[in-house]
């Protein structure tokens, strides 16, 4: 069976700068795949390529065996890839609950006429959207803040809310861009538990970019290290920690 996500020699150049060079990765179903690398290594660019924000200069990207390169971001989300953002992007003037509810729109079946006329289908679906969104908030222990403005939440809660919102699109692959950034050690430990739970309960595959080594090593089963856009190592966390090239990339050459 094909991998859930596969990229073949994907390259992204911005003018003379090669941000991602011939990236080839395979993320199997149910994997917790970590993408790490020093600052400026091209991790977020990889995310933006996978989600259609940028177009790849070269190479192919496949999701469930079908090409996704050249697709628009909203099409990719519809196919089943959801993401969070490194610099949190919540909808500022909506409540916590409404933020999650927005993500249910793509699975919505009501037409504009249903909404304008207030048909039974509209009311039924609005109730369902609300209930499902509330259930997601509960998973992330955010149900008590449902009515608050999203951007008034503490940083760690905002990150969890972004994950809840991404899950509301019913993805099969979840891309987390530095989910532990700005979290204290306790919050980071809780996050690791939630990520594992998501994989087990939602049959989700997770690809995450992270700086926090404790989180990466603690949660991922495969770690992929890039530096200056190039892959320098792929393997289980224990091997990666001993890999001399990785150590050099992070600590600098002797």
């Amino acid at each position, binding site marked *: 069976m094909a991998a859930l996500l596969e990229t073949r020699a994907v390259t992204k150049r911005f003018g003379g700068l090669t941000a991602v060079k011939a990236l080839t990765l395979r993320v199997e179903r149910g994997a917790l795949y970590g993408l790490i690398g020093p600052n400026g290594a091209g991790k977020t660019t990889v995310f933006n390529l996978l989600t259609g924000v940028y177009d790849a200069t070269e190479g192919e990207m496949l999701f469930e065996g079908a090409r996704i390169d050249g697709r628009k971001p*909203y099409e990719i989300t519809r196919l089943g890839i959801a993401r969070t953002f490194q610099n949190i992007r919540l909808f500022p003037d909506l409540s916590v609950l409404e933020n999650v509810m*927005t993500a249910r729109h793509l699975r919505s079946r009501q037409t504009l006429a249903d909404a*304008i006329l207030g048909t039974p289908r509209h009311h039924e679906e609005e109730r369902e959207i609300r209930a499902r969104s509330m259930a997601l908030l509960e998973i992330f222990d955010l149900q008590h803040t449902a009515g608050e403005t999203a951007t008034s939440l503490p940083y760690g809660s905002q990150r969890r809310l972004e994950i809840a919102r991404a899950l509301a699109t019913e993805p099969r692959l979840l891309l987390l861009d530095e989910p532990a950034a700005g979290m204290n050690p306790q919050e980071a430990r809780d996050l690791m538990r939630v990520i594992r739970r998501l994989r087990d309960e939602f049959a989700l595959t997770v690809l995450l970019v992270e700086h926090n080594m404790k989180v990466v090593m603690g949660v991922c089963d495969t770690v992929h290290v890039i530096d200056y856009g190039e892959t320098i190592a792929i393997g289980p966390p224990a091997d990666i920690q001993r890999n001399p090239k990785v150590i050099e990339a992070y600590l600098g050459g002797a």
Partner: protein
Amino acid sequence: MRVTTKILATAATVGVLLGLNYLFEYGFGDFRINAYYARILNLIGINVILAVSLNLINGLAGQFSIGHAGFMAVGGYSATFVTVYYGRAIAGLLGSSLDDATGAAVVMTISLLTGAAAAALAGLAVGIPSLRLRGDYLAIVTLGFSEIIRVIILNIPAVGGATGFTAAIPITNFFWIFAVAILTIVIVRNIAASTFGRVLATIRGDEIAAEAMGISTTRYKVLAFVISAALAGVAGGLSGQLFANPLNPQNLNFVRSIEIIVMIVIGGIGSISGAVFGATALTILPEALRRLDQQFPGLRMVTYALLLILTMIFRPQGLFGRREVSWAWLRRRGQDRPAAAIK
């Protein structure tokens, strides 16, 4: 609401409007409504349609369009054109005439639907290429569009050119204006309270995140733009066929667009209640200030401007902010602040 409740509510609204309309036209006993007040009331209705529809695109979707007068012109001239050139024929087909209530009602419906369709098409034509632009750029494109429309109309003799569409037949009345105003409020409110309203909020909030939620931002921006344009077109059709108020390109320039924007900004951008309030207040205010002009000539528009400036200084978010007046809101206020209620 159950279907029967909805039908009853609609029937009751239509009944009340028809009753008021009768009062407007024939009075009650010796009572006659002052024509000047009647005119202001009708203008309030038209401005409510314009403000609430503009609120859909400028308030809910967060796109800055200043071409509303252009859509009003496209719809208004198309609607009036239908009545002037085909109205009598359509009424004749029914064995009726434009002086007859049934004939006028049928012609009015057809004329307004034509106006809505023409304005919607214009909205689509402007929206598809220009809604990829943001902020100032979109404002400039919509402004340019409305000026182009105005110049085109100036050069069509069949619709009166620079003298205005004086051939218009005044078949608009209180009933039509307020029926459409209520319909506009219901449409925009129901969109705002649905999953589509949340889609517009995501576009307003963060387009990159909206796309990551699987929302085609361009598609929904165009959709909001088209609905907004269609409603403005209907407002144009109503206003062009109002007694002694023919459409004139001079009154449909960008100052008119700005006026509508000021209404929603003062009311509270994004709030439907605010748009209704802003439209009402800014229609009445210049008229109410006429008395001031009688005593202190020239002070009218100065005071008007001053009041707008003061509102923006003390309530930059508009009088209503993003809040809506609803039964739930009124009840909450009543409970939260018993002191205020007593006072």
